[in-house]
């Protein structure tokens, strides 16, 4: 490792670190020789210190009872969960009361469900398991060994000195009344109320943390509280005419009020550290900061549904709903969403039944429109920003047009919003679905097949606006997206005998999405691909090491394809590099040989193209359950195939850096190690992410012979998740987000659960 670091720094024109001398920070780095001959013997396994085998525990106790009039249950759950990092702990207590009672000669039911939970989290995640092993945990004086004056990653110092605790309480209650007004007419009204609260206390000490060091200690309290009230009333009419015509009509109304409040207090510059966040007012009075916020949304819905079935053979459903949301502009708050479905249970027809093949043959088709309002509130409103300017010896609050909607964590630079869009409206998706349900062999084999096509219009998204307007972006309804796919499910009962059984389930899904439009190309400020001419915009997170956003939304392409350069091996001579159109450092032997796709003799941004697709070709899973006498075994495999992963760690892990290009190893597969290399987003970092994983294996034993001690039922079981993964992907875990970016980290945990269920 030290050797490679020296080589990389030398290649980058920097002084190597491991030369047996102090670096500019005054930190002594041993030479490679000292490390090799054991003169410098410190070799700390930070990962061993930082990680643990986490244990979680879930205890559940329930009392249930019922008689003719009343049903009742009370249960309590106590749950503790350790994170994989030391002292990263979570604990939660849950109490659930459920009562239903019949009144008015059993013509009506009233009930309530109340859940109260409280818990806390000691947040100690993200510790530096990657810390340099040559530095000891403690120095000769017995204090934490810090590397330089700005060492903010010492995991033990942070664990023992930093506070970051969160406590939360949730109260969820609902009450309902069901009344059977007539034999065919039922009314149900329900009120749900949800209250949540969370308080975070933190203290960043004067040493060991950046915030604390720069501010002479920093502490704060973040409060969050939300309430949600949903009320709904539905009337249902259910009657069968002439024995074969069944009609169910339902109509109702619901309202939803949501409110979230936050308040954040922060103080810095403390005398000593003994109070933590206990008394923020003892911090520097001129640097205390407060912030608070209030978010309110309202939604109303009218809903009507009509089900008609004839002879249980022909089924038809029509639904109409009208939704109103406070998030949209004055004339666009309300939208109506109709849908309809038809189904034919063909196996109930005599001519199908006579074939003696199908136990079930049902053909279904539906078409419907639905709406999406997943945006922040207040985007229809004018919104001014605020900041501070130092005038006459103190900071003054400043107010005006434009407010930051995002901040780049690395550079501190803002993206600005503030143009209201009073015309914002619902994003709508129309979906067509065609499906078949089949069952054979006395329902031992069941097959379901579905085809769907979803078409989204008025896509809610943030578009860019010209910088001379002083804004970066605003929310609009712009763009169209198409999704189509198939889903196939096969269920089979292979054996079902008294002592043993075997069942299986297979699922296959395949989805294709395509961006049909991103709105008016000019008005939405799309980029144009220099080679193929398609319009695109960058989407998602910036990857700092590449100074690039890897994903784009491109018209005519799947969502989130990767955009960058192509690499054709490694440059072996400067002449080869220059001939390839590269200059300076990038043309040297050992560098990536980017491809001059437009053949203009220079490698520039015009040579970028689509270099991969993070969307899988298909996904599949398989579930197998077997039982023999009291034992049962189940296996669950899942897999995803054909997706590409952007592996940001393809050339920075101990597993791949030794494979580097050197004069002695003129490989075409890896570049040389060079500090300060400006990496470009290229297909060299794109890898196949297909995998097949044994997600779950569980073995259980049923206890049924303790009736004499009042035990009714019991089961012991062992459950293991993530037992193995078959993949050619080089990182630790091929399961990444929808943007397909692999950021590194540690392997996915294997979870062992030992369980005992007892029913008395």
């Amino acid at each position, binding site marked *: 490792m030290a050797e490679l670091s020296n080589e990389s720094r030398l290649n980058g024109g920097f002084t190597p670190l491991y030369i047996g001398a102090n670096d*500019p920070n005054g930190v002594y780095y041993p030479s490679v020789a000292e490390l090799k001959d054991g003169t410098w013997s410190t070799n700390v396994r930070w990962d061993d210190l930082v990680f643990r085998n986490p244990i979680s525990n879930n205890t559940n106790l329930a009392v249930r009872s019922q008689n003719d009039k009343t049903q009742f249950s009370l249960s309590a759950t106590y749950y503790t969960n350790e994170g994989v990092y030391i002292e990263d702990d979570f604990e939660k207590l849950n109490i659930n009361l459920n009562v239903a009672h019949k009144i008015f000669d059993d013509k009506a039911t009233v009930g309530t469900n109340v859940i109260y939970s409280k818990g806390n989290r000691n947040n100690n995640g993200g510790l530096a398991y990657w810390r340099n092993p040559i530095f000891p945990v403690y120095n000769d004086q017995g204090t934490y060994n810090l590397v330089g004056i700005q060492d903010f990653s010492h995991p033990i110092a942070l664990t023992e000195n930093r506070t970051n605790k969160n406590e939360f309480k949730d109260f969820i209650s609902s009450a309902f009344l069901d009344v059977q007004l007539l034999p065919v007419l039922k009314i149900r009204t329900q009120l749900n109320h949800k209250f949540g609260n969370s308080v975070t206390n933190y203290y960043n000490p004067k040493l060991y943390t950046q915030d604390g060091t*720069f501010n002479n200690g920093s502490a704060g309290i973040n409060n969050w509280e939300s309430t949600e009230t949903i009320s709904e009333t539905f009337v249902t009419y259910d009657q069968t005419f002439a024995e074969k015509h069944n009609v169910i009509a339902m109509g109702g109304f619901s309202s939803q009020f949501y409110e979230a409040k936050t308040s954040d207090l922060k103080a810095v510059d403390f005398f000593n550290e003994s109070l933590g966040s206990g008394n923020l007012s003892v911090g520097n009075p001129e640097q205390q900061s407060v912030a608070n916020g209030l978010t309110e949304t309202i939604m109303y819905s009218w809903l009507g549904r009509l089900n008609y079935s004839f002879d249980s053979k022909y089924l038809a459903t029509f639904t109409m709903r009208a939704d109103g949301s406070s998030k949209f502009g004055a004339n666009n708050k309300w939208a109506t969403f109709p849908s309809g479905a038809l189904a034919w249970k063909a196996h109930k027809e005599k001519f199908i039944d006579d074939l003696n093949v199908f136990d079930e043959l049902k053909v279904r088709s539906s078409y419907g429109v639905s709406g999406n309002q997943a945006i922040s509130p207040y985007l229809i409103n004018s919104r001014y920003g605020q900041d501070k300017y130092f*005038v006459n010896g103190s900071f003054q609050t400043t107010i005006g047009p434009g407010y930051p909607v995002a901040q780049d964590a690395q550079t501190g630079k803002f993206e600005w919003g503030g143009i209201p869009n009073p015309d914002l409206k619902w994003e709508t998706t129309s979906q067509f679905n065609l499906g078949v349900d089949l069952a054979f062999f006395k329902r031992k084999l069941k097959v379901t097949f579905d085809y769907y096509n979803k078409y989204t219009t008025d896509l809610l998204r943030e578009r860019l606006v010209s910088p001379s307007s002083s804004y970066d972006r605003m929310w609009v309804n712009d763009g169209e997206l198409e999704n189509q796919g198939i889903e196939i499910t096969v269920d089979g009962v292979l054996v079902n005998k008294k002592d043993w059984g075997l069942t299986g389930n297979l699922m296959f899904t395949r989805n294709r999405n395509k961006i049909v439009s991103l709105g008016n190309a*000019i008005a939405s400020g799309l980029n144009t691909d220099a080679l193929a001419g398609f319009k695109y915009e960058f989407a998602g997170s910036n990857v700092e090491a590449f100074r690039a956003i890897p994903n784009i939304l491109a018209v005519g392409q799947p969502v989130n394809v990767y955009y960058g350069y192509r690499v054709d091996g490694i440059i072996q001579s400067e002449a080869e590099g220059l001939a390839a159109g590269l200059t300076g450092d990038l043309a040297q032997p050992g560098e990536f040989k980017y491809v001059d796709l437009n053949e203009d003799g220079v490698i520039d941004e015009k040579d970028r193209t689509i270099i991969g697709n993070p969307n899988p070709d298909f996904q599949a899973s398989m579930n197998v359950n077997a039982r023999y006498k009291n034992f049962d075994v189940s296996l669950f495999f899942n897999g995803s195939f054909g997706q590409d992963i952007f592996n940001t760690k393809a050339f920075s892990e101990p597993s791949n850096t030794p494979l580097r290009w050197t004069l002695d190893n003129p490989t075409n597969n890896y570049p040389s190690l060079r500090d300060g290399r*400006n990496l470009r987003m290229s297909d060299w970092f794109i890898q196949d992410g297909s995998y097949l994983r044994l997600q779950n294996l569980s073995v259980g034993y049923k206890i049924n012979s303790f009736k004499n001690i009042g035990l009714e039922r019991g089961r012991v079981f062992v459950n293991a998740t993530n037992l193995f993964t078959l993949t050619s992907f080089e990182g630790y875990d091929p399961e990444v987000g929808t943007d397909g970016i692999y950021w590194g980290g540690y392997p996915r945990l294997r979870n062992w659960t030992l369980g005992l269920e007892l029913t008395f």
Partner: protein
Amino acid sequence: MKNIKHIILGISLSLGVVSCQDLDVEPTGFYSDQNFYQTVADAEAAVLYAYDAITLVSYAPVSYYFAELASDNCVVKPDEGADAQQFTNWEVSSQNNLLLDYYKSIYIAINRANAVIENVPGKGFNEADEKRILGEAYFLRAYNHFNAVKAFGLVPLQSSLIDRLDETTASLPIDMNEVYTFLIDDLNKAIENLEVNRVVGRADKVAAQALLAKVYLYAASAKESGVPKYNSITASVEDLYTNAATYAAAVINDQSEYAHDTDLQNIYDVNLPNGPEHIFILSMDRSGIAEGDYSKLSKYFIPYISGANVYLKNNDNSLLKTHDGWSVFQTTSDLYNSYEPTDKRRTDLIVSEVYNQDTVSVAKTSDGSLIYPFTRKYVDPEFVGDKTSTRPFLIRYSDIQLVYAEAKADLDGLAEYNQVRSRAGVSTLPDLAGLSKADFRALVIEERQRELAFEGDRLWDLRRTNTVQANVTQAAGLSPEAVAFYPIPQREIDLNPNIN
């Protein structure tokens, strides 16, 4: 109470009592155009928001990439990002992010100024306050547009507040004459409205006069030296110089608040932002919480030394403490050698050796342990971590003295020129014998480099005198258009159908 109201409302709604008007939610978390500009204090906060735009990380620090890195004063750290390298190498493309940062920030400041200009009149505030606030807004609108014109040439002139999508596609002005008419007009309104009234971090009448002198001088020299597009300015070069001299003279003669500071190190004392020289200085303070409230300018100019604190030697051998920096803007030997060895601006303001608290040398340029001599114009001994009060010097009295000298190019001008030089302890000129006006103006430009080095001015002097190629090695051989203006950012061209 509100929740109870919701519950009651929920029940009554369930029973069918519905009023669909209630889907309006009144936001209370922020001000908007509906509820602001009601009091003078509001208007004050609004004009300060416009000043505050200049403190953005994407504005003030970025201005030095233009004026210092692209000139012969500084080069960028070798492993700084590609966008920064493009400035030193004169390869700035329209997709350069720093280019976009600067352009965007300028228009943010302009829109904030326009919000004041549009909303303050007619609110019935007392006249003195209204005039002062409006005057500052006109000043800021001109100041920021001028920055854009120096960097990009013909750029949209925004004369009204933008708060609707259909206002976001501004057109370009017809020519430079329209641009300069707009700038001069705004500055005249600023001068009319403002009084002499010094507040650190804000502009007053003197600042507006000073800026107008600089605007006229830019136009005069650019038209005279044949800078592309400047030929369209209808006023004669002579008249432009005369106007520049007139407004510079107003700064020098018609007020007593600002003056030539005879103590060189005083000018750059971080605790004296109200020193006589500072006609317009940006205000930032180390007690701020976010960058922009405080400044990291020192980090850009000071080299990386040891990651620890170092000490600079004062003239009296006392020590001045500072953090080290990031080595981003590295002094060129051209600049360093442009000073005579005894020039106080080199001996007192450029650091070639640093010490520890016991005055033991830690690093020096002579043995390479200090990688370049650095300016002490941005040093804050009371820094907190990376936080400092180091401020950009936006308009300095000596700058206007040299503007006057250049514009007049006569014995009156020579007196100002000589005053600047004699403070630095270098020889003065007894008269202009043997020097044409052009010769003397060239001397003033050279003096401006030495006097205003690291203060964000050099590239503009080179551009307006059409001497970029002659002075900046990396720009040699480029076309006059290529050195006179940076490209308008690609994003503007992509998003604005009225510009292509």
